[in-house]
């Protein structure tokens, strides 16, 4: 067989093999392109009541980390380790919580909705919890209740049907609230001045039984 004939038989095989591998492995790999959650865990421990102060310190660690719809796992390197994930896709397996998952973990809540007691969720425990923002807005779960917005206190929350954020520091000089929240894929998780308190879309929500 001449070299030219060998080459003519080799090249189609090369192209075929390359195409097959890229299609078989490349598409799912791209869909999970950072695969941050591969290093997450399911570690938690039950505890007695904690203070609002401790909850805020816990939340502060997530500030600067990412946002992931349906997510709940982050580290503390002040960096979104999965930037630019396609939004609204829970299968991107990126870093960070979404708004309701962040509130669930920060409020030391338990997945059993009839149990109002406390549970420590490790930063990299990949758990979202059973509540949506709308559930929190309605005071769903034994640990939660609705609360007048004018009487809220730090680490209470403001919730709408589509978003929830917790009060980090109330009443700035322009009379906003600094809110700690998992905001959006481009925003990540952090603290920002917001006007949720005066927006009728939002209701006040309180986690009960703080120490």
């Amino acid at each position, binding site marked *: *067989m001449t070299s030219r004939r060998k080459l003519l*038989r080799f090249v189609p*095989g*090369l192209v*075929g*093999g390359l*195409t*097959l*591998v*890229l299609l078989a*492995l490349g598409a799912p*790999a*791209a869909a999970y*392109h*950072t695969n941050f959650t591969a*290093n997450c865990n399911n570690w938690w421990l039950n*505890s007695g009541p904690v203070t609002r102060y*401790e909850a805020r*310190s816990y939340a*502060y*660690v997530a*500030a*600067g980390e990412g946002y992931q*719809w*349906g997510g709940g796992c982050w*580290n*503390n390197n*002040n*960096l979104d*380790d*999965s930037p630019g994930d396609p*939004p*609204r896709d829970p299968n991107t397996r990126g870093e960070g919580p*979404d*708004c309701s998952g962040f509130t669930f973990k920060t409020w030391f809540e338990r997945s059993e909705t009839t149990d109002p007691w406390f549970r420590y969720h490790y930063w990299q425990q990949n758990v979202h919890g059973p509540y949506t*923002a709308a559930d929190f807005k309605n005071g769903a779960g034994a640990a939660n209740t609705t609360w*007048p917005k004018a009487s809220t206190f730090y680490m209470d929350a403001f919730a709408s049907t*589509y*978003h929830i954020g917790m009060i*980090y*520091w109330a*009443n*700035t*000089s*322009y*009379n*906003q609230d*600094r809110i700690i929240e998992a905001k*959006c894929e481009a*925003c*990540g998780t952090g*603290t*920002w*001045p*917001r*006007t949720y*308190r*005066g*927006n*009728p879309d939002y209701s006040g929500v309180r986690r009960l039984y703080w120490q």
Partner: protein
Amino acid sequence: MKKTWRWPLAGFVLGGLVGATFLTVNVVGASSPAPAGVTGSSFGEILHTPPLLAHAGEAVELRYDVVCGQVKDEPGGACTPKGSVFVRASGASEFVEQPLEREPDGLLSAEVPTGHGGFDYYAELDNGRGETATLPEAAAAAPEHVWPLATWTTVDLGSEQFGETRPPSSIVSELTWGKGSQALGLDSGQEQSRIGPSAFDVAPDGSIVVLDQVNHRLLTLQPGGATAQVPIDFAGGEGDLAVGGDGKIYVLDAGGSQPVVRSFSPAGDLIAGTPLAETTADMVRVGPDGPLVHAYPSEMWLPTGPGRPPLAPEQQLAGAQAARSVDGGLAVVVSASPAEARFALVRGGEVVHSWLVRSPTSLGEVQLAEPFGDGLLVVVRLWNESQAQFRVLRLAPDELAGTFAVDRTEWAETASVSRFRLRGSTLYQLRSAPSGVEIATFEIGGTR
């Protein structure tokens, strides 16, 4: 195996190996997350709302809190901060230390007499873990300030009548949601905020420049109806925008852990960009000497420089001021709470005019406070649990010269205090609905 299959099979195997190698290097290797369990060692954050405006002769309470953050991923995370405020009466040269005392609610506080000249102050706090920080960061070099109010104009708004709003004088622009030249980006979905264009401003030629950060661009709406687009870098989800008298455009990119301010020529060419000295910011406005950014946790106005090179973070901290400088050697001071909003025009340490606005209806955020005639034009939210609207106040030196209410029309989120802009005697409002965005105007001259 037939010999005729050898070469195609060899090619197939080699192609597969090349593909697998490519994916391993470019997908898996590039995306390995940071190692788990990294522990932080930073101070955390001092929390404080500066009182800014206090009745002359009365004491004012300075209150602080500290968020230490968890050092380890385990229950706890509490710390025991302590510290002092350093106070200097206006006209004095030395700061005097005054220890902060722990209140029953856990905050640290100190009562400081306002006197009749006001005072400068800064705090130095130890987080109980051997780390210290000051607020503001430049401490004595650029301290916070409290102005004394000896006389003021009280404006009692009475209970807000919701629904009695003034219709706009005109709608100068209407755009749909989307990516085209007559559209603005909307970032929405389940379990996240509904985020539209963050901010806008009116250029000297009457064009309206919109920060369409969802589409990573500035969209300019020209008076004749034409639009122009300028692509911009924008890393975060929201920000703010201001246009100077010379047409330069300043964009605050407030996302992530490090806000950035970028300046653009009137044509949209990037002039410069600089990181902000503080970690959080909500407003950029143009002062007599260039852009000023309202930053946290200090709540001071940081200059970032009008041109190239911009001011570095340490220069920003050194130039920080508690009041926002405006033309004529004046500055605007805002200090609002749910029961009362205080406003002042100041010149240095002197209060030129001041106003106390009260209502039995809860006051929300101050959306706008700009010089107008001899006084101020203010837009403030009023709200209860189920209703809200904005109230426009024309504050003349000795009276409320006019007021009217404006529908909130805020289906999508903007930057928190960027819904209104004032140019001349026209107030502009960025409004949103499920169908899109509109820019409405209100002529101030006819206020009742």
